[in-house]
């Protein structure tokens, strides 16, 4: 069994080794193909600029993206220990945190950890639902902006769409609390109008949470969708119309296939953000509605079990990636297509 200190050294070395391997492979292939060597990076940029480019990108990708993720994954395979025993003889690699996620106990595998597993499934399924709902909600607006509106009207629409985005997530959740609380606006209005006899528990029934989440990510669907639909040739739509296609045919068989990549990137973005949402579940979640992200949060700040929290975070990340890649497979797209 390797020790934690060795593990850390291996982790830090890993990205460097990978970069070196890729670089060597590229040079080798170039020689095989008998291509002339490329103009060197520093020859092309000069030393001062070249050093700035390399340093900035390396610090970013290694120090802020790759190494932190690797260290998080590594911690998830370690036991919870008091501070002074970190790196000590009891700090060995183990699967107990993952066992806890599945079975509710670090050692026994008798019964399933139904509370956490159910919260996990609910989170993933409701994020898929939210992405789908937002797609339907935003499609007409994005289509109109891309194919109907022009000039000043388009600029105004874009401005109106961006503005609410700068009100932060917590205030947006707070707005839905003002509306949906038991003595909130909606209940007051419904009671006053005599439509209901007693206040409806919108928060307990998750209506507040779903509305808040759908609202929070609407804009992140509109923009990728607008970009994608903007690239669809108006002539194509015109042609389909001239050939007598009904309107829903035009959308389903002409516009949507052409805008596939943008639709996928909007859905990916909303799905990922909705799974990782923290503010809305904290503010709008009812007692019955356990979401996975608040559970992860509690591992850190209620239970103070960081390794377990890291394991939970990693499980969440892997699940997100599996759903996104599977969805893209269905559409015959790659993960890189969504980033365009």
């Amino acid at each position, binding site marked *: 069994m390797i020790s934690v200190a060795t593990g850390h050294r291996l982790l830090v070395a890993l990205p460097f080794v990978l970069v070196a391997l890729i670089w060597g492979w590229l040079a080798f292939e170039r020689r095989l193909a008998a291509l002339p060597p490329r103009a060197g990076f520093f020859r092309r940029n000069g030393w001062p*600029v070249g050093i700035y480019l390399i340093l900035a990108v390396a610090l970013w990708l290694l120090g802020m*993206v790759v*190494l932190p993720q690797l260290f998080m994954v590594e911690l998830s395979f370690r036991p919870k220990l008091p501070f002074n025993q970190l790196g000590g003889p009891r700090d060995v690699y183990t699967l107990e945190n993952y066992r806890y996620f599945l079975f509710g106990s670090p050692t026994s595998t008798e019964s399933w950890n139904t509370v956490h597993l159910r919260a996990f499934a609910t989170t993933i399924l409701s994020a898929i639902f939210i992405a789908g709902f937002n797609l339907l909600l935003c499609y007409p*607006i994005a289509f109109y902006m891309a194919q109907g509106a022009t000039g000043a009207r388009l600029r105004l629409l874009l401005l*109106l769409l961006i503005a609410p985005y700068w*009100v*932060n997530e917590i205030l947006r959740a*707070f707005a839905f609390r003002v509306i949906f609380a038991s003595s909130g606006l909606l209940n007051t209005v419904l009671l006053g109008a005599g439509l209901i006899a007693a206040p409806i528990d919108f928060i307990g029934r998750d209506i507040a949470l779903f509305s808040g989440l759908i609202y929070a990510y609407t804009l992140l669907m509109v923009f990728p969708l607008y970009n994608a639909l903007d690239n669809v040739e108006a002539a194509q739509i015109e042609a389909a119309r001239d050939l007598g296609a009904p309107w829903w045919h035009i959308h389903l068989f002409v516009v949507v296939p052409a805008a596939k990549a943008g639709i996928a990137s909007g859905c990916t973005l909303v799905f990922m953000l909705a799974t*990782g949402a923290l503010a809305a579940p904290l503010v709008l979640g009812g007692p019955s509605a356990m979401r996975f992200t608040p559970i992860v949060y509690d591992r850190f700040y209620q239970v103070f079990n960081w390794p377990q929290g890291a394991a939970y975070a990693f499980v969440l990340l892997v699940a997100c990636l599996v759903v996104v890649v599977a969805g893209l497979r269905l559409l015959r797209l790659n993960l890189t297509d969504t*980033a365009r």
Partner: protein
Amino acid sequence: MMARLTRLVVDAYMLVFFAYLFLPLVIMAIPAFNTSPYPRVWPFDGVTLDWFVRLAADDAMLYGLRNSLWIGILVVAVSVPVGLAGAVVLQQIDSRVRPLFHLVTIAPVLVPGVIIGISTVIFWRDLTLSAGTKTLYNGVFLTVLGQSSFISAYCMLLFTARLQRFDRAQEEAAFDLGASHTQVFLGILLPFMRPAILSAAVLAFLSSFENYNTTTFAILADRTLTTVLAGQVRQGTTPAVSALAVVIIVATVLFSVLLEWMGRRRAKRAQAQG
């Protein structure tokens, strides 16, 4: 007849859609002016501005605000140069590894914010632990790094879009006239990128200022405006939160109008020159 009907449906949908976008914000703002001691739109007990006074005297909020502004400025200082370097490297990198490079740079945008916060904290905890010094294990520092990891990617996307329209002949001409690489970078590329740099800086600052998911982990025991706000909203709220919402909304509207006005003026000047 058909065309008019379509128009009507489109207009009605737009109206409903924008009502849906803005009504929650309007409703949230109303309790700021209501004397009722908890955030309530109706019944409206009486008009007051007390909640704004209360807000201005809230030390926790002011402390958080100061931290948030600091972090925002530092994030701009990190992610604008990093994003620019990323965009230049993306353009120059061997085409066979470009998709991989692109994926790694875009990853922090897709990874849930809580996970970025968690991984930043864990990495720096382990790093400072093995280095035996705790000076860098600091909430503000970690928050700046955590936020910059994905905000740099936003900036890079803006820069990449602008770089695609860059005419390399300009660089060639400068080299022929004997300019050094550094001179070309500072004298030709940077001025060309100026509009993108400005919008990237604005985007970076605003994204940092409103961030919660990454910040709540990376800030450790320290506080920013959003984490103070989250605490207040969670433990039963006061209308002072509404008052803060009003301030933020007004600032946002003023800022958008200012940007729009600047954009128009620039467009007009470009037209006059062209």
